[in-house]
């Protein structure tokens, strides 16, 4: 008898799409359709080198997006990751270029500064109760100014592939027989797996979601809400640091003053991938798939004769549509 009614409660009919992972599944199909579309439209697109360049583009966006998923799940946001990425990379690069530090040290410093800004953001939001978008808008400006200030306004080239310390570029891309192998993608997959585990199977992830679902109820359950709230931003900062490394490894030079708008690609990717702006809903795999929608737009549009600027406009609309879908879903749920 027990079994019978269990199957009744669990047996609320799930659609095919829901069983395949809901929005994630749809977005995955969109990615595939987009890929086929661009391939059909342009012979230049269906080349191995294009795939490699799409992946090259995707690393830093994906890393930022994985990180920003955590603040988003708490119901907040982090707008500082884009300019932050450039700032961390500039400072790390400066140490390597001007102060002759080994690349490994430069990388560690880059990540550390990311974590520090994560802590700052976390404290502003969790301890000082500032609205997340405003607090991180400020740190966005601060990191932008800080990075440019430290390097004195000049671009910083991290060591090139052949140079001393250029080994770090092969973290993301190695050459075998004249062909580029995008091994960075494996790192991304590994990190997605790790962060999925963190999100779904550890206290850290559980409480991140709980804060986004009902912060007060979580607090009343005896959870140290402030700590875990800060930690969400620290994770975000950590991944912005990792993204800074990826960015330095892929692009020749890091320019101060750039980076604004990167966060849009990352946040857009996360939301397209099913992360809810109101918190608690979403996961890292969805975020990754969403990032590829953005990356395909970024790399694909020039192939069909539209400049990269169109990508900006389209990302803006994609973001609004994704949020509207989220709002619509929530309205439907609460209406029931």
């Amino acid at each position: 008898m027990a079994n019978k009614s269990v199957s009744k409660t669990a047996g609320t009919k799930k659609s095919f799409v829901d069983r395949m992972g809901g929005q994630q599944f749809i977005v995955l199909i969109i990615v595939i359709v987009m890929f086929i579309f661009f391939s059909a439209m342009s012979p230049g697109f269906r080349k191995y080198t294009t795939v490699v360049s799409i992946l090259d583009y995707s690393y830093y966006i994906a890393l930022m997006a994985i990180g920003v998923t955590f603040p988003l799940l708490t119901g907040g946001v982090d707008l500082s990751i884009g300019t932050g990425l450039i700032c961390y990379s500039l400072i790390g690069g400066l140490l390597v270029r001007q102060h002759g530090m080994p690349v490994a040290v430069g990388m560690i410093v880059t990540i550390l500064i990311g974590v520090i800004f994560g802590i700052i953001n976390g404290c502003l939001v969790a301890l000082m109760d500032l609205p997340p978008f405003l607090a991180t808008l400020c740190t966005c400006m601060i990191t932008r100014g800080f990075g440019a200030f430290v390097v004195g306004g000049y671009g910083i080239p991290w060591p090139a592939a052949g140079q001393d310390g250029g080994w770090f570029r092969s973290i993301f891309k190695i050459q075998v027989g004249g062909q580029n192998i995008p091994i960075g993608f494996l790192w991304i997959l590994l990190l997605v797996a790790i962060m999925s585990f963190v999100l779904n199977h550890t206290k850290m992830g559980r409480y991140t979601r709980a804060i986004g679902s009902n912060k007060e109820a979580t607090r009343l359950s005896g959870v140290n809400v402030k700590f875990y709230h800060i930690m969400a931003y620290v994770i975000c900062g950590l991944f912005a640091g990792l993204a800074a490394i990826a960015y330095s490894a892929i692009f020749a030079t890091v320019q101060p003053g750039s980076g604004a708008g990167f966060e849009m690609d990352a946040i857009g990717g996360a939301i397209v991938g099913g992360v809810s702006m109101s918190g608690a809903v979403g996961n890292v795999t969805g975020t990754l798939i969403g990032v590829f929608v953005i990356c395909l737009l970024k790399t694909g549009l020039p192939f069909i004769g539209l400049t990269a600027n169109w990508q900006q406009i389209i990302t803006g609309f994609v973001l609004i549509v994704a949020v509207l879908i989220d709002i619509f879903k929530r309205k439907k749920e609460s209406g029931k």
Partner: protein
Amino acid sequence: MESIKQNPLVKKVGFNRIVLCIVLLLMYALFCILTGGDFFGMRRILSALNYAYFLGFLSLAVTFVIATGGIDFSIGPVMFCCALMSGFCFTMYGMPMPAALVISLIIGLAFGIFNGYLVAYWDVPSFITSMASMNIAKGLASVFTKTQSVSWPQSSQDGGWFRKLVTIGDIPMGLIILIVIAVVCAIVLNQTKMGRYILSLGSNKEAVRLSGVNVKKWEMSAYIVCGLLVGIAAIFFVGAYSTVQPGYGDQYNNEAIAGCVMGGTSMAGGLASISGTIIGVFIISLLQEGIMALGLDKNLQLIITGIIVIVAVFADVVARRRKN
């Protein structure tokens, strides 16, 4: 301290505003000393005012949105979009100057309507809307101008008369216009139905709705005013600095918001001060000029305004906490 606050004259002018004015004067004195008197002259003041014009309009614009409890940080890029697209119409398509100026206003207005509609009628969080329209503005401007910068005509050139809006000789026309429009804004906010509803719904939207007020319409109207003022800001930006480059503009968001929150407008909505905003804008402009005059890195400006906003908003949070 308390007794000063209770003084009727102080109460009337507003304690916050008096403090801001003192800060403004002290800053000026400090810069005068630090630059060895270089600051003590019309040249620097006029230069600071140039910055204050467009920033003033931006700050007024965002004041309306913040009064409803929302936020708009697409204002900087939208301002650039207005300046780029209308300037391009003038330089490349040979449109007459008045038409170009009107186009600037129309583009600003269009973004205001777009933002307002999404926020008020479709319940999209305002910061998402502004993120999206920030991207759209940047992209649109780049596409339209084919990623080229646009230079507006100098005063001697054809159509250069529009610079008279900013200065006629040594007369700072811009200041006069800014003050006039600020007064109009103050009247709108404090003396009209629209302002009353904007402030009230920023404070308690549901209570206003249950009073039978069309809150959606009025909330959207705040964004429309914002858009129009951004269009005006664009004209004063090019009037002072001539050249605009696509892809930029977001650094001005923070400065505009800084001017607004420093002036006593609450991020929680419902409380706004136009005069405070204007004084706040003067402080930011003076700071910018001072940093330039002292030969310091202009990036310091970004850092300092960032910190100013954090401090000002935190003060507002603390004040609200104490009230409850």
